[in-house]
């Protein structure tokens, strides 16, 4: 039996997944602001705001849960990877990244969250968990589709997108 078969444990995962996604987007937005990439910073800030809307939804579900929620330490979560699935690949960010790259990063995060919920929806033994996971999975799939549509407005940039004739961190 997976720990995620328990409704309370599942809800804590859902809340933390959205919270960490929002935090990661804010972290990326802060980094882009520091490096004067304001366009991408604004995009990441917008993503953080969307994640907080979803966080509120998950929190509302959790608040309705009569049994209370388990107090899990960060390392006790049952994530498929080393971080919560919607946290994104922060290491693939770049100070000159374009909206195309930012949307790609966000799309990968949404698809990862979708796969996480879809897996639970198809395997969980608890019916309530399956139902909620299917609902969240469908939402993540919608977000992914919206991002794909958004990406059509930001095609892949030229190969020289990261060229900087006066880089802030040039080698010795």
């Amino acid at each position: 039996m997976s720990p995620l078969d328990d409704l309370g444990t599942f809800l804590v995962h859902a809340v933390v997944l959205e919270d960490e996604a929002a935090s990661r987007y804010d972290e990326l937005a802060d980094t882009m602001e520091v490096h004067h990439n304001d366009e991408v910073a604004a995009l990441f800030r917008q993503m953080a705001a969307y994640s907080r809307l979803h966080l509120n939804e998950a929190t509302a579900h959790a608040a309705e849960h009569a049994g209370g929620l388990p107090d899990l330490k960060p390392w006790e979560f049952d994530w498929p990877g080393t971080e919560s699935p919607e946290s994104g690949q922060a290491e693939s960010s770049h100070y000159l990244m374009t909206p195309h790259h930012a949307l790609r990063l966000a799309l990968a995060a949404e698809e990862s969250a979708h796969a996480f919920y879809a897996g639970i929806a198809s395997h969980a033994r608890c019916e309530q968990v399956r139902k909620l996971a299917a609902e969240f999975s469908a939402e993540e799939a919608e977000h992914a589709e919206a991002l794909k549509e958004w990406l059509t407005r930001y095609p892949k940039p030229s190969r020289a997108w990261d060229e900087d004739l006066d880089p802030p961190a040039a080698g010795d």
Partner: protein
Amino acid sequence: MNSEPQLQIQALAHKDYKSAYKPVWCAGCGDFGVLNALTKALAAMELPPEQVALIAGIGCSSRLPAYTRAYGFHGVHGRALPVATGLAVSRPELAVIATGGDGDGFSIGGNHFLHACRRNVNLTYLVMDNAVYGMTKGQASPTTEADWTGSKLAPQGTHQQPFQPLEMALAAGAPFIARAFSNAPNELAHIITEAIQFPGFAFVQVLSPCITFRPEQMHWKKRVHEGFVPTADRREAFMALMDDDGFSTGIVYRAPRECYRPDTAKAVTLAEIAAGFEVVS
């Protein structure tokens, strides 16, 4: 009144440990993961920020104290451990954590590292190891591979064997030795928690990629693996390190022993200290 749903769970509280300063690290730097892991560890232990002191030297990773709400001291290059040692013995009620990089800790502060291991004062030392001097723009550091040719200062490589931090710590007498990875912040938070709770000198080498000067380190994610099984047997720990490929993670050695504590029973006044320096003609 706030109409948003309110839910208090411990896992959300780690943000409360961060300061309002935005890190100036490069986008994608591994040190972001260390900051997240450290704040998660402090939240998991429910340690109030005013009971934590972060001490650093110089370097990209040594900026970390400024990005938290705990007490911080950004000192001289390579001297995080002497400052942390003084603070830990004079204010034992604080959780003292020294942070820095491989150059700061193993080169400029290398001698302090050895003696901190042997002295065993109750503090935690987190070294963010990226095998390069990042702040000064990409020179080889003590942990750089002998054949790395990425620096114009050593275009044929350094031809020097890299420093082995875990082996050195074990040989010098450190009672808690671990390695973790910045891209696995939850596991890193666990190891940091164990290190802070350990009664003595706890050393954690954190593999923290420098994506600017060592972009190939992005592939560390594929190479890092769980490997160490904690032991209190020094011989077993050495054997584990002999078999180590440099990417094993976990606690390799944990063997509590008596901490160094100066005798504070005899209180001395400032006047008495001053009297000792009086010149008698």
